[in-house]
């Protein structure tokens, strides 16, 4: 009885998996908000493409892989969605990826970063609008690495940290930099002074940091006068709540995935205005444009297939597809379906009337420049 | 002599079991009132109900002129009641000293005096003053429990089978101590050692199946073999 529901009735259904609760709640909400805006934008507010109505259903993964699998299965089997979008954590996403293949539905990965999603765990149904760890790393390297520069790294002792650093190392060494020392700390630790001590002893030019999580080392870096000792700190700019904890790092040079001031294009202007309008004057944050990009990518693909949700066709039209997003033009690379995208070399500066250090543009890092290695074969 | 404690048709449930089904008795000032009865008759439950540790569902308990059956155990205790439970109720992980200290009000010279006196009766406690009380011998625990109740200056003392596990000579000392206290402290005693009960008891009640079924002067029971056989099964 369930079989007749779905696309044939002229509705296209999209299941969005995101962390609506749990530690990544704010990321999840950014994605969902962005996605909603993206659909509006791409369909000019009609929520229709090629005469078909688009519906989307949000499910909370709670940042637990087993829940993600349950919810994804529900979306695929009960709601019979035509696309999956998600999710906020790489773990959840990795757990869901095989389902996309099994049910032969396109999954647009956003904003999970693990390389393996479009690398070792790749399958043809996966497209990722989010940047991956390697892109981060390449951007991070591009921002600081030069011939002869000595760099030490600091990261949490887990997959996220280790993957991030190894990708960075590869990229930085390619640019001729010298990685002196890699330091890893307990991801749940509170005291990083021992680690910082060790880094200081190495006397690098730069300290490159990969960090996620609330228990950040920023204060301790400042307290231990790392910069006074001639070591420049560099890291990725996170979302606004986390930027608030980075006041000690004003002046730092690093990279950014997105900050609403950075991209200069129409889509982004629209996003910022619309977002402020709808969400009591708040600006879009780190993963809002990602959610939007995912929606735009889906609509663009459907336009190309004229509303046909057959996955083979969709894959064919999406491979190599370029589309306009708040971050400029993105292109799904044919080989591994990773969207090549602009990233930003930035500097944190304090700004009048803003209670957090603001990422200001040094230069745009073009999609080609930050293209990560292809690793799905 | 005036009545200090009076129970009127007290009934008590434990969970869904109707344990006390009508206990009535009085304890007069300056007397030792003894509750007798076979195992499971409800003697301990009676004492616990007086203490407020089990709640009476029916009936009244008067302490002096006050009804106390609705009060909390600590309120009852603070009205001047002491309790030596049948399982000693000592705090095994605390030392002998700490067990006693817990019961004493601070800087109470009267209590200190009483402590002196009680330690003379039970010199073992003095000897093991700093010992963890859970490691004491059975009889020593019993002594500690009695001593702990004695140091508090109370008007009414409920003692549940004090003689069990005590050497004959210690039983004698306990008896003497009770005699000594009598004028200041009224005592309700549950005792299976008939020799002891008969020596120090003034008045007795027999409890059976949760009811008081007979009462009289101790003298009467001692003199009346028939009565003993009927109610206690002993000659």
């Amino acid at each position, binding site marked *: 009885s369930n079989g007749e529901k779905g696309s044939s009735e002229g509705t296209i259904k999209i299941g969005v998996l995101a962390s609506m609760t749990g530690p990544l709640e704010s990321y999840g909400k950014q994605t969902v908000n962005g996605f909603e805006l993206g659909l509006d934008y791409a369909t000019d507010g009609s929520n229709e493409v090629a005469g078909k109505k688009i519906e989307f259903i949000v499910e909370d993964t709670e940042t637990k892989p087993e829940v993600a699998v349950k919810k994804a299965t529900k979306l695929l089997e009960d709601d019979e969605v035509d696309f999956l979008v998600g999710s906020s954590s790489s773990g959840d996403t990795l757990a869901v990826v095989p389902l996309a293949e099994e049910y032969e539905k396109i999954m647009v990965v956003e904003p999970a970063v693990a390389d393996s999603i479009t690398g070792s765990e790749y399958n043809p149904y996966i497209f990722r609008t989010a940047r991956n760890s390697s892109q981060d790393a390449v951007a991070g390297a591009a921002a600081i690495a030069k011939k002869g520069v000595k760099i030490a790294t600091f990261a949490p002792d887990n997959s996220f940290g280790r993957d991030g650093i190894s990708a960075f190392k590869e990229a930085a060494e390619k640019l001729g930099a010298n990685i002196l020392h890699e330091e890893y700390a307990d991801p749940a630790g509170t005291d990083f002074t021992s680690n910082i001590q060790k880094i200081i002893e190495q006397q690098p030019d730069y300290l490159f940091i990969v960090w996620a999580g609330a228990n950040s080392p920023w204060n301790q870096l400042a307290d231990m006068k790392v910069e006074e000792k001639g070591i420049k700190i560099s890291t990725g700019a996170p979302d606004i709540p986390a930027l608030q904890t980075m006041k000690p790092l004003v002046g730092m040079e690093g990279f950014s995935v997105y900050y609403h001031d950075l991209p200069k294009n129409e889509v982004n202007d629209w996003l910022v205005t619309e977002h402020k309008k709808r969400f009591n004057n708040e600006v879009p944050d780190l993963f809002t444009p990602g959610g939007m990009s995912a929606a735009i990518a889906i609509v663009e693909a459907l336009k190309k297939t004229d509303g046909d949700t057959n996955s083979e066709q969709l894959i064919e039209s999406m491979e190599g597809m370029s589309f306009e997003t708040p971050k400029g033009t993105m292109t799904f690379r044919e080989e591994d379906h990773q969207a090549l995208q602009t990233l930003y070399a930035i500097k944190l500066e304090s700004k009048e009337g803003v209670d957090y250090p603001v990422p200001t543009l040094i230069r745009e890092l073009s999609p080609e420049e930050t293209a990560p290695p292809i690793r799905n074969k | 002599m005036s009545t200090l404690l009076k129970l009127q048709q007290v009934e008590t449930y434990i969970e869904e079991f109707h344990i006390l089904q009508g206990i009535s008795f009085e304890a007069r000032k300056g007397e030792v009132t003894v509750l007798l009865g076979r195992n499971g008759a409800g003697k*301990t439950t009676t004492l616990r109900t007086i203490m407020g540790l089990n709640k009476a569902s029916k009936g009244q308990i008067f302490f002096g002129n006050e009804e106390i059956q609705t009060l909390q155990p600590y309120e009852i205790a603070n009205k001047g009641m002491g309790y030596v439970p049948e399982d000693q109720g000592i705090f095994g992980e605390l030392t002998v000293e700490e067990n006693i200290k817990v019961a004493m009000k601070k800087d109470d010279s009267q209590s200190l005096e009483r402590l002196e006196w009680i330690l003379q009766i039970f010199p*073992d406690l003095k000897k093991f003053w700093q010992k963890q009380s859970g490691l004491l011998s059975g009889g020593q625990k019993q002594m500690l429990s009695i001593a702990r109740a004695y140091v508090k200056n109370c008007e009414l003392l409920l003692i549940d089978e004090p003689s069990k596990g005590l050497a004959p000579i210690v039983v004698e000392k306990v008896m003497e101590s009770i005699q000594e206290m009598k004028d200041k402290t009224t005592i309700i005693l549950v005792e299976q050692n008939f020799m002891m009960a008969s020596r120090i008891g003034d008045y007795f009640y027999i409890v059976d199946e949760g009811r008081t079924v007979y009462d009289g002067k101790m003298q009467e029971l001692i003199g009346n073999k028939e009565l003993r056989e009927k109610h206690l099964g002993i000659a």
Partner: protein
Amino acid sequence: MTSIIETKNLGISFGNHKAVDQVNFAIDEHQFTSIIGPNGAGKTTLFNLLSGQLKATNGDIFFCGKNITKCSTVERTRLGMGRSFQLTNVFPNLTTLENVRLAVQAQKKIYFQMLKSVFSYKDHSEIAKTILKTTLLVNKDDVLAKNLSHGDKRKLELAMLLALDTKLLLLDEPTAGMSVEDVPAIYEVIERIKEEKTKTILLIEHKMDMIMNLSDRIMVLFNGKLLADGAPKEIIANETVQSAYLGGLYDEYTA
């Protein structure tokens, strides 16, 4: 005649307190021996040493000629030593019947059977029920042990020991807190076991009448030392025993 249990210089110290000190004795099979002594003399501790709850600091214990000083409680029980505890020590949230049935199960050496329901061991329940009757615990089969009155718990304690059916019985104040009415019956149970002449009994009691009537022999412990050891008549005449243990009360018992 061989002695069933024997100690050589048995002793234990807690810190510098010698609770049991250089105790030597040998008890013949089927003999009924009582141990008396003031509170804290070391009677229970001696039992704990014999049954393995405590490990001796020095000396040896022999059971049926075998040195068991190093054996665990479990091994000793299996060799045939059973004991009851002074402070009631049962399984509080099991029913009276289940308590005794566990002892029966141990006696039958059903240790690791996990594929058969206990209910298929009908005989266990029967034996348990008989023992409960003997120990005056009728109509209490389904009562949880923790809900028994104090005296009934003492009876249960005894019932579990009887169910173990060991060669040697160590009884630690079995009748303390039992009602005057029930003591004679329990006394009879013990006496009957004695009369059967199949078991050796060691009894700790403070009830002198019971001791005098039952004992073949009395040992007196004082401050951990074996002060006197002999026939009841001799012991009762001993002056130290009179003054330090009995006080003036003994007359009452004989009177």
